[in-house]
C-alpha cells in the first residue's frame, strides 16, 4: 500500500489562499498502525481470511509482533473434536464467539456442516469454524499408504487410520499450544499449534515395561524463563523375584522436558498417594495443577516451575463430602484469565463454580456461579463443563452433545449437529505465534501439517 502523503510539516502559520482539492478518502491512505488495530479486533477466522487480501496485509499478519499482540487480546475459545472410537479425527473446530449476543439472539443450533451432512436448513446454524488439523501419529507411513492407494491418480480425501495406533489424545492447552499424548498410556508425544499447523515431537522417554497405570502428564509455561515444560509422572515397579514375574511398587518417576531441549530431566519425588487419578492439568501462576481426587482427601496437586517442587492445596470446601473426599466424575478445573477455577456439578441440577482469587490461599475460593435448576424439567443428566464466562452469563458444554447458554436464570440449548459421535471439548486460546518463536533451543525440529 502506498501512502499519498509523507508526514512532514503540516502546520501553516497563515491560512493558505488555495483551497485544497477535496478528494474521497481511501483506505489505501490508512497507516499500518490503524490497519493493525482493525485486524487485532477480528476473530481468528477473519484474520486468516485477511491474509489473502493483499501482500501488505499478509506481511502484517505474518509478523511475529502481530501474532503476539493478537494473542494478548484473543478471547478464550473452545476446541471441539469428534470423539468416535472407531475413527481418527484430525479436525479441531474452534468456537470463538466473544459476543454473547450471538447466543441469546439466536435460536440456531451449532453445526459442523461437514460436506456429507449438508442440509438446506444448516444455512441458518451457527457454524463451528474455523477448523484446524492435528498432526498424524505416523504421517510418513499413513501418507505413503495413501499415495500408494491413489497410485498417482487423485488423492483420496479419507485416510484409513486405526484409533489405537494413530490417534492422539489431548493432554491440555496452554498459551495457544496443545500437548498431545498416546490414546492408551497417555504418554506425552507432541506439542502443536493447530492454527499455524506446526508441531514438535517430544523426545522418547524411558518407558517402563508392564505399565499398569497410565502416565499422568501436564503442559505448562514458565513465564520467568519463557520456557514451555511438559511434566510426566509414572509409577515404577521392580521385579522382586527372578523366577516368577512379580512386580512391586518402587517409586513414582517424575520427569520434566523443556521444549527446545532433547532430554527428559528427572526431578525429585512425589508421594504415591498424590499420583492417583490426576485429571484436568491446568497451567496458571507459573505452576501446573491437577485435580487429585483419589485417596483420603480431595486436593489440588501443584508443581511449581521455579522451585521444581510439588505441593498440595485444598479445593473449595463445599465440594468435599463428609469424609473430605471428592468425586472426580463431576468436577473439572481450568484457568480463567489467570485464575484457577473449579466447577462442580455433583448435585443434580446444581452447577457451582469457584475461582481462586488469591493464588494458593484456600480462603480465597469465591463462588462465581451457581445455577440451581432443580425444577427445570428439561435439565438433562450428564457432565456439565463451563467453557466460557460472559458478563452475567455462562456457556456450558454438556456431555449429551450440546452447549447450554445460561443467562439470568434462563437456559438455552444449542445442539451440536453434524456428527453422531460424542465430542471432546477443551478450552483453547487460538494463537498465531509460531512454534519457532515460542520455543528456544537448537534441538527443535518444527514440522508442519501443511508442508507435506
Amino acid at each position, binding site marked *: 500500500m502506498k501512502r499519498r502523503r509523507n508526514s512532514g510539516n*503540516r502546520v501553516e502559520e497563515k491560512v493558505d489562499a488555495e483551497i485544497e482539492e477535496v478528494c474521497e478518502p481511501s483506505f489505501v491512505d490508512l497507516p499500518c498502525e490503524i490497519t493493525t488495530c482493525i485486524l487485532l*479486533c477480528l476473530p481468528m477466522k477473519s484474520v486468516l481470511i485477511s491474509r489473502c487480501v493483499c501482500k501488505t496485509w499478509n506481511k502484517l499478519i505474518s509478523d511475529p509482533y502481530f501474532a503476539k499482540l493478537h494473542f494478548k487480546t484473543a478471547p478464550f475459545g473452545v476446541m471441539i473434536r469428534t470423539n468416535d472410537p472407531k475413527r481418527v479425527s484430525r479436525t479441531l473446530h474452534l468456537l470463538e464467539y466473544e459476543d454473547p449476543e450471538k447466543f441469546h439472539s439466536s435460536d440456531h443450533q451449532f453445526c459442523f456442516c461437514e460436506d456429507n451432512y449438508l442440509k438446506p436448513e444448516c444455512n441458518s446454524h451457527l457454524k463451528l469454524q474455523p477448523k484446524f488439523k492435528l498432526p498424524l501419529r505416523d504421517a510418513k507411513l499413513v501418507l505413503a499408504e495413501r499415495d500408494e492407494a491413489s497410485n498417482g491418480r487423485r488423492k483420496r480425501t479419507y485416510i484409513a487410520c486405526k484409533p489405537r495406533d494413530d490417534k492422539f489424545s489431548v493432554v491440555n492447552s496452554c498459551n495457544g499450544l496443545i500437548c498431545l499424548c498416546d490414546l492408551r498410556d497417555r504418554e506425552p508425544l507432541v506439542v502443536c499449534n493447530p492454527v499455524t499447523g506446526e508441531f514438535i515431537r517430544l523426545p522418547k522417554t524411558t518407558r517402563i515395561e508392564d505399565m499398569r497405570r497410565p502416565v499422568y502428564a501436564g503442559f505448562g509455561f514458565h513465564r520467568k524463563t519463557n520456557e514451555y515444560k511438559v511434566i510426566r509422572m509414572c509409577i515404577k515397579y521392580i521385579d522382586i523375584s527372578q523366577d516368577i514375574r512379580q512386580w512391586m511398587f518402587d517409586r513414582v518417576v517424575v520427569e520434566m522436558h523443556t521444549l527446545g531441549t532433547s532430554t527428559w530431566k528427572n526431578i525429585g519425588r512425589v508421594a504415591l498417594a498424590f499420583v492417583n487419578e490426576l485429571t484436568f492439568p491446568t497451567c496458571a501462576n507459573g505452576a501446573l495443577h491437577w485435580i487429585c481426587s483419589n485417596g483420603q482427601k480431595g486436593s489440588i496437586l501443584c508443581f511449581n516451575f521455579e522451585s521444581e517442587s510439588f505441593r498440595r492445596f485444598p479445593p473449595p470446601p463445599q465440594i468435599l463430602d463428609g469424609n473430605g473426599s471428592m468425586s472426580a466424575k463431576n468436577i473439572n478445573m481450568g484457568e480463567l484469565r489467570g485464575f484457577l477455577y473449579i466447577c462442580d456439578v455433583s448435585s443434580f441440577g446444581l452447577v457451582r463454580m469457584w475461582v481462586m482469587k488469591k493464588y494458593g490461599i484456600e480462603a480465597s475460593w469465591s463462588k462465581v456461579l451457581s445455577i440451581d435448576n432443580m425444577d427445570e424439567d428439561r435439565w438433562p443428566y450428564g457432565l456439565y463443563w463451563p467453557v466460557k464466562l460472559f458478563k452475567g452469563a455462562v456457556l456450558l458444554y454438556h456431555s449429551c452433545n450440546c452447549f447450554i447458554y445460561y443467562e439470568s436464570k434462563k437456559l438455552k440449548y444449542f445442539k451440536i449437529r453434524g456428527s453422531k459421535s460424542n465430542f471432546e471439548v477443551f478450552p483453547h486460546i487460538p494463537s498465531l505465534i509460531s512454534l519457532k518463536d515460542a520455543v528456544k533451543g537448537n534441538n527443535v525440529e518444527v514440522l508442519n501439517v501443511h508442508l507435506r
Partner: protein
Amino acid sequence: MAEKASPSSNSISLKTVDGKIFKVSPAIANQMLTIQPLIKDSDSSTIISLPDVAAFHLTKIIEYLEGKPAAAPSAVDAFEAQFVKDLSPEELKGLLIAVGYLKVNGLVDLMANTVAKLIENKSVEYVRKFFGVVNDFTPAEEAKCRQEHAWAFDGVDED
C-alpha cells in the same frame, strides 16, 4: 490534559480539508496526538491545517471528545455505541482515516472495532472492495495462501 488556565488557553483553530475552520479548546485539541506538539507554540492567530480531515469528521471527533467525559462511567459503553450507530460504512471509513491521522485518544480503538465488525466473517473479495485494496498477489501466490486456510473460506457471509 491541558489546564484551562494555562497561558495558551486561547482556543485553537483547526482548518479542515474542505476549508472550514473550527475553534476548539486546548483540552480537546490535546487529545489529538498528531497535533499535540503544535499546540504549545500556538496562539489565537495560529491555524492548524488538517489535510486528511473533512468538516463532517472533525465535527464527529469533537462530539466524541466532548461527549465521552460528560457521560457517566457506566454510560460510556452506551455513549460509544450511540456514537457509531448511525454512521454509514462510507462515513465510518472516512472517519477512521481522520481519526487515524489525528490519533484521537480512545477513538482509534472504537473505530477499529466498529470497522472490524463490518468485515468479520466476510469474503476476501468483500474485504478488498470495502477497503479499496488492490490484490497484488500473483494468482499462484493467492492460490497458495487460500489453500493454507481453505476452511476459512467456507460459510462466509453473503457479500
